[in-house]
Structures are given as C-alpha cells and as structure tokens.
C-alpha cells in the first residue's frame, strides 16, 4: 500500500526553550510563555501570526488557554493533550493536519514542566498517595510503578535473548555525556566512562543510576507552518519529510502479552515514517532517539533499522552514535545529560543541526561558524547535516518518529 505523504509541505520555522534547571522557582505558565515567545521571535513572526496551539502534559502543566492570551495570541485552534514521551512528533503531525484542513495557519507546540522541583516521574510524592485501581492493579501492587520499573522486563529480555551487556548499553550515556560537554545549556556537562555507568548504584536491574535520565524543570516550543509561509521567514525553513505519531504494539496497556517483548513500537512506526519520507535509515545523518534510559535509545535505533535486530548493543558501543562518528545521536546530550523535556529538546537540537546553528562552545557559534573539533568543550555541530530523524518513545509499546531535512 502506498503511503500518503505531505513530504516537504510543512516546516518547523521556530524553536525556543527556557533554562534547563533543577529548580525553576516559577510556574509552568511563566516558563511556557517564555519558550513560546522565544520560538515566535526565532521564526521572525509576531504573536498575531500564530493562531494554533498544541501542548501536552500529565496534570503537571498549564493549558494553552492560559498561555496564549499571556502573549496576546488569539487562537483559531488549540488542543491540550494528555501524554509525555512520544507526544512531540505526534503533535507535529497533528499541527500539519490542523493547517492542512484550514483550521489554522501556524501552530505553536509547547511542553512546560517543573519535572524536578514539582512533579517527578514515577508516582512519588503527591502521586504516590493516589489509590490504586483499574488497570494499575495489574502491576502497581507488586512494586512496579515508575517508568524504569515498567520498562525493565523489556530491557532484561533483550539482554537474555541477544546477549546485550550493561557495558555495551552504557556507551549511550558515554556518547551523550560527550555531546553535553559541548552544550552550555546541559544540566550535566561532565563526560563519563563506561565504568562510571556500570559502577553507579542499581535503581532497578538492569538499570544503574547513570542509565537513567535527569529530571528537569524546563519549557520548550516548536513552531510549525506551511512551506509556502515558511519561505519568507527569518530562519532557514526545516522541511518535514515524514511523521509517525504514537504508533503502538498490540495490547498497548499490557504489551507483555504480545511478543517478542524485546520488540518496541518502532517496529511498526518505521514503515510509516520512512514510507512518507521516501528515504532509508542509511540516508539519515543525525538521530535524536528518546533517551529516558540508555536502553531506550539502543532499542529504537535497532528497531528503526539503523542496525539489525539484536545488534543494538554492538551498534551503540561502536562509536557510530558519537560526534565524529558516522551517525551521531542526541548531539545535545539528550535527556540523559542535557535535561528531560519529554522529547521536545531532541527535535529542537535537530532543527538547529539542520540550520547549522547549534549553540555549542565554538568561538564563532553565534555567527554559525563551527570548527567541527569534537574534543572536550568545543564543537557539536555535525558537518553538512542534511537529514535528521527523531525517534520518540512513550514506552516499549508506543513510539513516534519525525524525519526532517534542510
């Protein structure tokens, strides 16, 4: 079946973000306003040019009807979506759909969260007091509630089936820490070694502390509009080649029933997104793979066909995913090192990679001049990056994807 595609008809024209911190000291409303404003200015637009708004959250943020008016934006379309990881790419697709139908012209997508200081992941604090009922009864009474605890069966089974080792997977953190060391915004800029990762304390086997991402306070925003509208805007338009949103395995909420459980949703998403884009994995120069955990990056790169199924451990430990390697992943440091944004920051980073304007520590970065010297504290701009791909993760059973070009 031929894949329907809107390839190259829509663009991301603006990106914005607030500081990545562990204590913002302000509301998600204030942060969202700052991030949306920055993205609008980045695009060279005015508030009156934006007439659509999408955001996502899990009861931990501020809805669009409170953010838009703060900036003087009058909306022709908005929707507040429940969700975390994998929402970014899905909402890019929904924004394209909203514009395609004529409901609106230009959409701001934001995520704002005090993910460290207010609402931490995993049902701790206020969330821990919630009664357990319904589908939660299948796992929460057994001490299985956090994201890491919920994903660990999949990770462990992958190690059992394919011989994947902790040391191999640790290379994801090593690579991302290398990239974060060239990122002035990153929460954790120190480079780490494989030994640092496997020597850190256990959280839930097979995850060590350094296999897990950094909960962060932050807001992020992307502006989506038509390619036609994008042509006369300030920033170089970044074209959307393909998008897949929240593609899921059978029996999403109890996906362990359907196997192999070491398979993740990218297995189903890849044909949609590559079909739309008309390219193959080897055509992608830079990836941004959701790294809630080291394992999630490994599993997705494997499932989308950047290596063979089962060879993800060897692939991520080969140097390919590092800056200077054949196909760097999460050049900002990702959720493991830059900070946790439920997927948004990795799309922002890839937009900047394609523009050639990554905000690294090169002396000429502000003017878009890069040395491509990837030693400590220097460049993180990939030379001549033309095509990027984002691999969004909600859980083993649900994922999204986005392919962009300059």
């Amino acid at each position, binding site marked *: 079946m031929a894949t329907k595609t809107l390839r190259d008809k829509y663009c991301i024209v603006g990106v914005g973000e607030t500081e990545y911190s562990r204590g913002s000291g302000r509301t998600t409303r204030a942060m969202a306003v700052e991030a949306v404003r920055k993205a609008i200015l980045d695009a060279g637009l005015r508030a009156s040019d934006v007439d659509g708004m999408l955001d996502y959250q899990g009861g931990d943020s501020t809805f669009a009807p409170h953010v838009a008016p703060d900036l003087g934006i009058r909306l022709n379309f908005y929707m507040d979506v429940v969700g975390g990881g994998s929402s970014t790419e899905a909402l890019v697709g929904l924004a394209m759909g909203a514009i395609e139908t004529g409901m609106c012209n230009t959409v701001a997508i934001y995520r704002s969260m005090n993910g460290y200081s207010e609402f931490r992941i995993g049902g701790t604090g206020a969330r821990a007091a919630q*009664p357990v009922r319904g589908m939660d009864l299948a796992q929460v009474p*057994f001490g299985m509630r956090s994201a890491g605890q919920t994903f660990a069966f999949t990770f462990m089974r992958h*190690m059992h089936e394919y011989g994947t080792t902790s040391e191999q997977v640790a290379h994801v953190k090593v690579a991302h820490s290398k990239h974060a060391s060239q990122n002035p915004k990153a929460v954790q800029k120190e480079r780490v070694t494989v030994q640092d990762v496997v020597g850190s304390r256990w*959280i839930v086997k097979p995850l060590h502390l350094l296999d897990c991402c950094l909960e962060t306070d932050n807001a992020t925003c992307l502006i989506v509009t038509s390619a036609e509208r994008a042509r006369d805007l300030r920033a170089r338009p970044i074209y959307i080649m393909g998008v897949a949103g929240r593609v899921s395995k059978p029996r999403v909420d109890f996906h362990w029933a359907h196997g192999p459980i070491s398979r993740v949703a990218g297995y189903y998403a890849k044909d949609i997104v590559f079909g739309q884009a008309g390219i193959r994995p080897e055509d992608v120069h830079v990836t941004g793979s959701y790294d809630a955990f080291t394992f999630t990056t490994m599993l997705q790169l494997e499932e989308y066909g950047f290596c063979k199924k089962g060879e993800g451990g060897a692939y991520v430990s080969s140097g390919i995913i590092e800056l200077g390697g054949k196909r760097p992943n999460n050049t900002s440091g990702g959720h493991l090192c830059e900070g946790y944004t439920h997927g948004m920051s990795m799309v922002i980073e890839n937009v900047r990679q394609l523009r050639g304007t990554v905000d690294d520590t090169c002396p000429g970065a502000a003017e878009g001049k890069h040395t491509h010297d990837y030693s400590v504290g220097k460049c993180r701009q990939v030379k001549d990056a033309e095509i990027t791909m984002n691999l969004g993760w909600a859980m083993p059973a649900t994922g999204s994807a986005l392919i962009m070009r300059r």
Partner: protein
Amino acid sequence: MPQPVTYRGMTLIVPDNDSEWKEYFAHARQHRLMLRACKACGLMRYPPTHACPWCMDLGWTWKEVSGRGTIYSYEVVHHAIQPGFKDATPYGVVLVELDEQRGQPTADEGLRIIGNLVKPDGVSFEDDTQVAIGKRVRVVFQDLAEHMALVQFALSDEAPPGRVWRLPE
C-alpha cells in the same frame, strides 16, 4: 461497596462496578486463578477484559488455570519509589508465562502475569538472587481482605525446561 484495602501503604480499590477486576480478585481470594476465556474462539486472556482481543466477541466465561509457569522476564528493584516497598529492597518482580496457551494464537504470545517472587508463605519476598528467567514457578495467593487476594508466584521444585539466565553480577 467493599472497603478499600491497605497494602504496603497503598490503597487498593476494587469497587462493585469494577467489571474487569472484581471477580478476578474474588476468585483469587478463594485461591483459584481464573482467567476469562472467549465463548466464541475459546482463547483465554489476561488481564480480564470485556472483548476478545482476537475475535472481538463479547461473550466470556471464567476458566481455571493451573498457576504453573515459567519466569519470562524479571527485574530487581533496588531503589523503591513506593514508600511501602522501601523495607523490602532489593525485591524481584517477575513476568510469569503460564503453561496454558503458550505460543498461542501466535508463536510469541502467551498468558503472562506480573507478580512478585515470594516464599511459599505467599507473603515474604524471595531472596533476589533466586530470580532468573527460565525458572519454574507456581501460583500462591496473598490474602489481603475478605474479598481480595493478590496473585503471587513462588519457586517450584520442577526442573527448568530450558536455559536459566540472570543478569551477571
């Protein structure tokens, strides 16, 4: 409405209108592991749901299973996030594949249930070094209230059918 059940600091609620779980936990309290089986195609399913995920039929009956199975995957929690589990760390959580309906209706599917690996008393957690993929287990029931018991698993003395594997230390 039955009283909420307190277990390890959590409040577990199975209201009278919980048409998925109420009877499942009531059966467990009678120390019977009962799953829903489709009246049309006969396939069992877990968790208990209202339609057959294979043929979409709405008719079902409760069917008792042996509660014997093999550990399909596992994890060991060292950093508990639920306060009531902090004194139990490190504890094992297991995904048990039941003997019934293994590899049906497709090769990679089975009836898999999440539980803790517990001692034969059904209450105290088994030593975490005992948790491994491929080990044989049997169901045990942890009574929590008059209307509710948790389905847990204990090691059985059966020989494992294949490779036993656990994460290298």
